[in-house]
């Protein structure tokens, strides 16, 4: 028998196999069609042979031809025949053919009559792969008849002992259901059971099938919701999770209660998605993204989710000093639109953004003031029921902005009136206080306007208005409101007296509020140079002696004080005290609207004020969204912005065309590729007001050259930054990155902020309380041509893999007449080498280490290294932080240690320009990466 087979094979062994066919087709590029037709003829011959192996080979080739687009349906019968063979190999090739393309009824009958017994036989094969292939094949050519006849067999297979068969059987049931719907009812209980199968593959198959079924008739599958819910919270397979979420998408419209249950797991997912958004934004897409988010805000159910969206919008917009905002008018209107949110807890966040933008972006003030005036005018809408409303915090910002920048107000009188309405007295105390104070500022502005005209009566009427309205505030229970109100009331009364004597007072009243309040940089104090001859560490008085202090301990009057141990010396104020003071200072700064915070996002401005956080939030249904009249919609800006960019683009193109026409353009931007980030110019030139620095803080360089060209500032070549990553020996999870910044421009660079997108493994260490997206201020400024070094600490979890971190440096370029905000992207490469620390090791300890047998080994060969051996060693020592343990002739042992205590040992040998390095380490992946890096070092020389 065997001999016969061998003989048969020898006869046919010069038949083409699949690879020959492929090769042949590739060699007959010119007459491919002709070649293939001869091949098809050969295949036909082969199919006529008795030998099943030959037939199988033919079928295999047919598969390939079918892919190339040749009709193979004529071979259907043979294919089924091969399928019936007892040899696994042959069947496999058949199952790949798409027999469905055989559409003749005749063939279907053949399949039914021939394949049924064959498939049934295979289905019960003891070999799981035989059964598997039969199932795969069946999935391609299930017919209603086959489905009917095989349904029960397949159902049995769903409980097969092998998970491999179970999952295939489960999947194929879907095909059976499609062709033979009656089988669904009896099969369903078993299918449901498979949702809880111990094998994750089977589970996932069952989820797949039910999701497909439920897509057509979701209501029949509502009963499975609890089961799916359990799966969703327990499964870790992404595929299954995605499917289940899709399924719930179909189910929730039918069962509203389901939505509530889903909120929690889904918001977790949404959180992750929102975090991604943060990194996605650019100047180009910011408006679009925020618009989408605003739509979600409108639709959001549940205040928690809505608040989450709100903070994300603000986070995204304000990140890295508003670097992605090209149009601040748009941003202000977004903020104003956000004030329409009922019951949000983040009123103070919106308020602080309004303040921040209005203070720092000078050009926007006119617009902002107009918006804020409308907001104040409609204040009653926002405070409909202030007991539960955190949004009234924005009125704080609105009142302050209107007061401080009142010169931009169109109708200050109206705003003044709005601020003195009796309803204001229902606002929280701290807001009332701002109202009162700023009413006085407005009063000054109004007086100036009115005294300019001849109508002196009007001015007196204004004073009367204040005198009428202020007593309400004088009665306030809030001390600050009371104090300010009574103070201002008396002032106005005095002014009125003067006015009655026809004295012009406006000038003097305005003087009360004169002077612009500029933002102060948080580190301004530090920048003040210590004057010569002042020693800050020297004692002013002799320190009291310790014994003395104990003797003179004041007696507690009411409570008995715990005896303190030794009193800390003045020089070393203990950490807690420092932290407490720092905290107090932060609080103080946070409450000061004139103080620019380190980062816009971490503002907790009025947190210490009672009330807002603790007001119970009740949700009300507001079917009609509140529209505050007269407020622009941010959408309009989006449109405008698009039009503007369109216009700009077409103009730019025109210009370029012109340029090209005027001989070959010399422009830097000869090619106008796709619109890049830099091409988007801000709508109006917004100079972000630079933070105030104390005089003579650092040698400032104001005599700049040639400020005529505004583009020059954009042309910054600061690409030279050098950095060095070094592990910290004291702490196994810290590395220090020293970055040298060199200013290669002609301009002064300041307010540099260094920010890195944290990865799961490595995180930039930021001061406590700041969010993971905040940048770190670089503690110096850079005059032209100067370089300086700054250090940043990163915490690293795993050190076995190298890593690249992306980051941005934002900075302000100061030219003579303007300051522009710029940014520079960079990458930090944390090599594994940087986690190694040069550690000496004695040869006996080294030998012991190697003998311990706990180290995994690996090796590396470097060819063509032409350098003296000691140079080579020096190079490894220098670049990769190793130390030489011992050296004998052209062989040396080296040692290094990682910051987490992994030992790395090298044995370096050299002969004839070939260097072989045998290495051992207790962490194989760390070792592999270090070796790669060593290889890289030598490939560069």
């Amino acid at each position, binding site marked *: 028998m*065997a001999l016969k087979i061998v003989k048969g094979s020898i006869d046919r*062994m010069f038949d083409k196999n699949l690879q020959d066919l492929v090769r042949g087709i590739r060699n007959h590029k010119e007459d491919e069609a002709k070649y293939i037709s001869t091949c098809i003829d050969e295949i036909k011959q082969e199919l006529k042979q008795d030998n099943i192996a030959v037939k199988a080979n033919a079928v295999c080739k047919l598969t390939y031809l079918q*892919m190339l687009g040749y*009709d193979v349906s004529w071979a259907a019968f043979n294919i089924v025949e091969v399928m019936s063979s007892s040899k696994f190999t042959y069947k496999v090739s058949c199952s*790949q053919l798409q027999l469905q393309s055989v559409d003749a009824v005749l063939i279907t009958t053949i399949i039914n009559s021939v394949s049924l017994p064959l498939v049934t036989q295979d289905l019960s094969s003891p070999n799981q792969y035989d059964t598997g292939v039969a199932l795969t094949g069946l999935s391609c050519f299930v017919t209603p008849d086959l489905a009917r006849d095989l349904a029960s067999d397949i159902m049995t297979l769903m409980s097969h002992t092998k998970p491999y068969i179970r999952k295939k059987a489960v999947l194929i049931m879907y095909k059976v259901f499609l062709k033979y719907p009656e089988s669904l009812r009896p099969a369903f209980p078993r299918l449901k059971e498979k949702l809880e199968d111990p094998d*994750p593959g089977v589970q996932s198959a069952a989820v797949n099938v039910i999701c497909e079924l439920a897509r057509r008739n979701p209501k029949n599958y509502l009963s499975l919701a609890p089961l799916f819910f359990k799966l969703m919270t327990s499964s870790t397979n*992404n595929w299954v999770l995605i499917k289940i979420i899709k399924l719930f998408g179909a189910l929730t419209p039918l069962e509203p209660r389901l939505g509530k249950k889903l909120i929690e797991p889904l918001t977790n997912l949404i959180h992750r998605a929102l975090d991604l958004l943060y990194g996605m934004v650019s100047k180009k897409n910011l408006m679009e993204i925020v618009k989408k988010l605003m739509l979600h805000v409108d639709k959001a159910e549940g205040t928690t989710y809505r608040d989450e969206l709100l903070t994300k919008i603000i986070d995204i917009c304000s990140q890295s000093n508003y670097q992605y905002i090209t149009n601040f008018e748009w941003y202000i209107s977004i903020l104003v639109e956000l004030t329409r949110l009922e019951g949000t807890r983040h009123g103070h966040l919106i308020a602080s953004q309004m303040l921040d933008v209005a203070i720092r972006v000078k050009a926007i003030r006119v617009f902002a003031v107009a918006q804020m005036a409308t907001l104040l005018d409609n204040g009653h809408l926002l405070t409909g029921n202030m007991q539960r409303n955190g949004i009234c915090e924005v009125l704080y910002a609105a009142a302050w902005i209107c007061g401080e920048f009142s010169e931009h107000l169109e109708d200050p009188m109206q705003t003044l009136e709005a601020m003195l309405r009796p309803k204001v007295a229902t606002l929280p105390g701290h807001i009332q206080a701002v109202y009162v104070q700023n009413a006085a500022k407005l009063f000054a502005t109004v007086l100036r306007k009115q005294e300019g005209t001849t109508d002196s009566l009007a001015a007196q009427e204004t004073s009367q208005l204040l005198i009428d309205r202020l007593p309400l505030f004088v009665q306030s229970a809030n001390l600050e409101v009371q104090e300010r109100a009574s103070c201002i009331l008396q002032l106005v009364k005095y002014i009125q007296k003067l006015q009655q004597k026809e004295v012009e007072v406006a000038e003097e009243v305005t003087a009360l509020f004169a002077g612009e309040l500029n933002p102060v940089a948080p580190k301004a104090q530090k920048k003040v140079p210590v004057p010569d001859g002042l020693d800050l560490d020297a004692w002013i008085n002799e320190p009291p002696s310790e014994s003395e202090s104990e003797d003179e301990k004041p007696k507690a009057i009411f409570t008995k004080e715990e005896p303190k141990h030794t009193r800390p010396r003045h020089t070393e104020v203990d950490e807690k005290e420092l932290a407490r003071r720092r905290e107090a200072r932060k609080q103080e700064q946070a409450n000061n609207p004139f103080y620019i915070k380190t980062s816009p996002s971490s503002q907790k401005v009025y947190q210490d004020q009672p009330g807002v956080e603790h007001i119970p939030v009740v949700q009300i249904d507001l079917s009609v969204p509140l529209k505050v009249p007269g407020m622009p919609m941010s959408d309009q800006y989006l449109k405008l912005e698009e039009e503007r960019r369109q216009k700009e683009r077409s103009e730019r193109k025109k210009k370029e065309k012109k340029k090209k026409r005027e001989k070959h353009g010399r422009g830097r931007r000869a090619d106008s590729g*796709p619109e890049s980030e830099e091409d988007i110019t801000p709508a109006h030139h917004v100079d972000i007001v630079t933070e105030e620095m104390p005089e003579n803080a650092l040698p400032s360089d104001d005599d700049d050259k040639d400020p005529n060209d505004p583009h020059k500032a954009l042309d910054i070549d600061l690409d030279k930054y050098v950095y060095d990553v070094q592990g910290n020996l004291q702490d196994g999870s810290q590395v220090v990155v020293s970055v040298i910044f060199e200013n290669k421009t002609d301009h002064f660079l300041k307010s540099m902020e260094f920010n890195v997108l944290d990865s799961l493994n490595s995180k930039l260490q930021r001061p406590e309380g700041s969010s993971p997206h905040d940048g770190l201020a670089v503690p110096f400024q850079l005059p032209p041509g100067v370089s300086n070094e700054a250090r940043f600490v990163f915490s690293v979890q795993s050190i076995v893999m190298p890593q690249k971190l992306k980051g941005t440096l934002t900075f302000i370029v100061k030219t003579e007449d303007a300051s522009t905000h710029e940014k520079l992207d960079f990458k930090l490469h944390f090599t594994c080498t940087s986690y190694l620390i040069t550690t000496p090791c004695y040869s006996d300890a080294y030998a012991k280490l190697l003998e311990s047998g706990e180290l995994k080994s690996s090796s590396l060969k470097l060819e063509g290294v032409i350098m003296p051996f000691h140079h080579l060693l020096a190079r490894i020592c220098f670049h990769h932080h190793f130390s030489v343990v011992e050296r004998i002739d052209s062989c040396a042992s080296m040692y290094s240690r990682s910051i987490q205590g992994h030992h790395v040992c090298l044995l370096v040998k050299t002969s004839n320009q070939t260097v072989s390095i045998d290495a051992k380490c207790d962490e194989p992946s760390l070792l592999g990466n270090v070796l790669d890096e060593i290889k890289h070092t030598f490939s560069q020389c």
Partner: protein
Amino acid sequence: MIKAILIFNNHGKPRLSKFYEHYSEDTEQQIIRETFHLVSKRDENVCNFLEGGMLIGGSDNKLIYRHYATLYFVFCVDSSESELGILDLIQVFVETLDKCFENVCELDLIFHVDKVHHILSEMVMGGMVLETNMNEIITHVDAQNKMEKSEAGIAGAPARAVSAVKNMNLPEIPKNINIGDISIKVPNLPSFK
């Protein structure tokens, strides 16, 4: 449901096509051409999902693709599939190919299209995703390869000898051709568990 899985190179030459719905050979070829035109025009940095062509599925249909070196991997799916899920699946597919062929390149796909089908059939069955765990897929593929080898046994010996002789005479043995510049780079992405 997955309607079709297509792999073609930068010139639109099909390297693998698997349709899970019935189309005539002509339509299949048209679909491949149309898909190639839709996909090849797109920039490297734009989204990996797009609306499907007219031929396959119409509006309910989406194309999800990834471009690796010289090859496009395209999945045509309907709305019941998640784009990101499929994108991950493509990654699993390519990583599996890379494991099975050791630095997979276009030539591997040309000469061993049967094996590629094989691997694919362990991942997707009848248009439904069967397995997303790479280790599981490889285990089953390997086990079946072993079976085939042992089955070939005595009967396969002469054929193998001949095939070896044929290969010897030919200057081009697929593995040795310029693997360097056409090998598919598999970026490390977090894949399914």
